[in-house]
């Protein structure tokens, strides 16, 4: 295959044809990818969210959060997936763990930041009126931290879904299987699967943004939800 025929824009027509021809197959692959992503996100949430929230509540460990954000960004997904593969072997578990590590960065950083930044006067008022620490967390800090905290979750989710195709190289399955296997699916298949991957990421992004807008408390709804560029990573 040469550059010359690659440039042929008819490949896009072929790619669309590929999608139209095999909706069931692509849907199965997409679900595979979502299952892997969901499992990875669940693990990342279970580990990073309580840690970030606890550190934020205590106003301790900002260096941990900053390190998490730098390491989160600086760790190439391919390196992570390859490294875990050598330890955990090929397949679902390896990819799930690698993607979970990747997703933990933004979750940890943002949940720390979100809780750490909650207006100290509101927290002092809450403590002064006799709220216990769990009550302060539940009634004051978490509701106010929610928008930023959810941004972290959204960034993590999009990062994981967007990285999942790379996991195909380590037996992760999903739409990536088609993208890395041009020998079987030809360029039309690779391109068709790529378009599906883009669509999938965009849907996840849009859905989570919608959820985020809906769950932001009304009293603090002025924060812009889309485009917190400082913290975005892939």
């Amino acid at each position, binding site marked *: 295959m040469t550059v010359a025929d690659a440039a042929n824009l008819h490949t896009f027509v072929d790619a669309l044809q590929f999608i139209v021809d095999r909706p069931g197959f692509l849907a199965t692959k997409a679900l595979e990818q979502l299952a892997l992503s969901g499992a990875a996100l669940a693990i990342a949430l279970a580990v990073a969210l309580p840690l970030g929230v606890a550190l934020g509540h205590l106003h301790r460990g900002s260096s941990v959060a900053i390190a998490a954000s730098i390491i989160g960004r600086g760790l190439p997904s391919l390196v992570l997936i390859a490294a875990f593969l050598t330890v955990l072997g090929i397949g679902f578990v390896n990819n799930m763990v690698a993607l979970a590590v990747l997703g933990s960065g933004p979750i940890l950083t943002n949940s720390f930041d979100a809780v750490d930044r909650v207006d100290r006067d*509101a927290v*002092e*008022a809450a*403590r002064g*009126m006799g709220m216990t620490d769990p009550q302060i967390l539940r009634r004051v800090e978490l509701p106010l931290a929610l928008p930023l905290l959810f941004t972290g979750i959204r960034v993590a989710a999009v990062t994981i879904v967007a990285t999942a195709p790379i996991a195909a190289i380590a037996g992760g399955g999903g739409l990536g299987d088609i993208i890395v296997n041009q020998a079987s699916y030809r360029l039309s298949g690779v391109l068709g699967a790529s378009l599906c991957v883009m669509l999938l990421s965009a849907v996840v992004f849009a859905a989570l943004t919608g959820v985020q807008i809906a769950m932001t408390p009304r*009293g*603090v709804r002025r924060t812009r939800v889309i485009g917190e560029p400082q913290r975005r990573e892939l």
Partner: protein
Amino acid sequence: MNAAAEITFDHVTKRYAGRDAAALDDLSLEIPAGAFCILVGPSGGGKTTALKMVNRLIPFDSGDILIDGRSVRDIPVVELRREIGYVIQQVGLFPHMTVGENIGTVPRLLGWPKAKIRARCGELIDLVGLEQSDLKRYPAQLSGGQRQRVGLARALAADPPLLLMDEPFGALDPITRFRLQTEMRRLHREVGKTVIFVTHDIDEAIQLGDRIAILREGGVLAQYDTPDAILAQPADDFVAKFIGEDRALRRLALKRLSDVKLSPTNGADQQPRVSIETTVRNAVSLLLETKTDHLLVEDDNGQVVGAFRFSDAGALL
């Protein structure tokens, strides 16, 4: 606890970690139940520190603080704080809750039934001079003065016998501050709670307090007495400087013509007239302004009850 609590500071000392100077040095203070006690002094005098020790937001090193004879250390901290209203300058309203939800926070923590909380909110919003419709608004939609009114209502919600206030009006413009000060005095008369009120503004202290504790740098108590007694006899140079050289006039501002032994009048007099509720300071000002030697004082019904002269003012001091 009773409707109003009696507070005792018993040789309380506090030194923050890593600092040589004490923030509060052997403070002893008796605040009778129902008093409006002001802690006043220059910035860094340990006022905030003293206040926050009462609800144990700051621990103290030695000595003790008693509420109705019971050490604050013997009361579980959460229970203690729920029985004390707390108001700070920055207010600290919860931005994600409506005014009503903010006010109802402590009652909710205490497990009051919903109907009772709603009724209480309605009552308090009147008490602090806001509209019932404000209950549905969010803090971001309120002015600074309105926010502080909500903060006050929130602190009063569970009817605590003690109210701690840390420069609550410090961030407000003079007109709003004056209005809130006036209402705060009315409110204190109506609800009859013990109030400990921190300010660095001596005027505010004199206007509001029935007892004033003056703290100097290093957290040392310089003088503790009624405003009148402090103005009449400052304990030392520091206090004298702090209350200002016009202390005689300030004292007169605390008194009304009803406190004065008036001179008799002589029949059909054309002198300016003033109400018996006028402060002596304002009456003196009027004497100077109108360049006369006496004013006619009338009661609520417009009946002249006597004359006021310079010498009558002097007799008060």
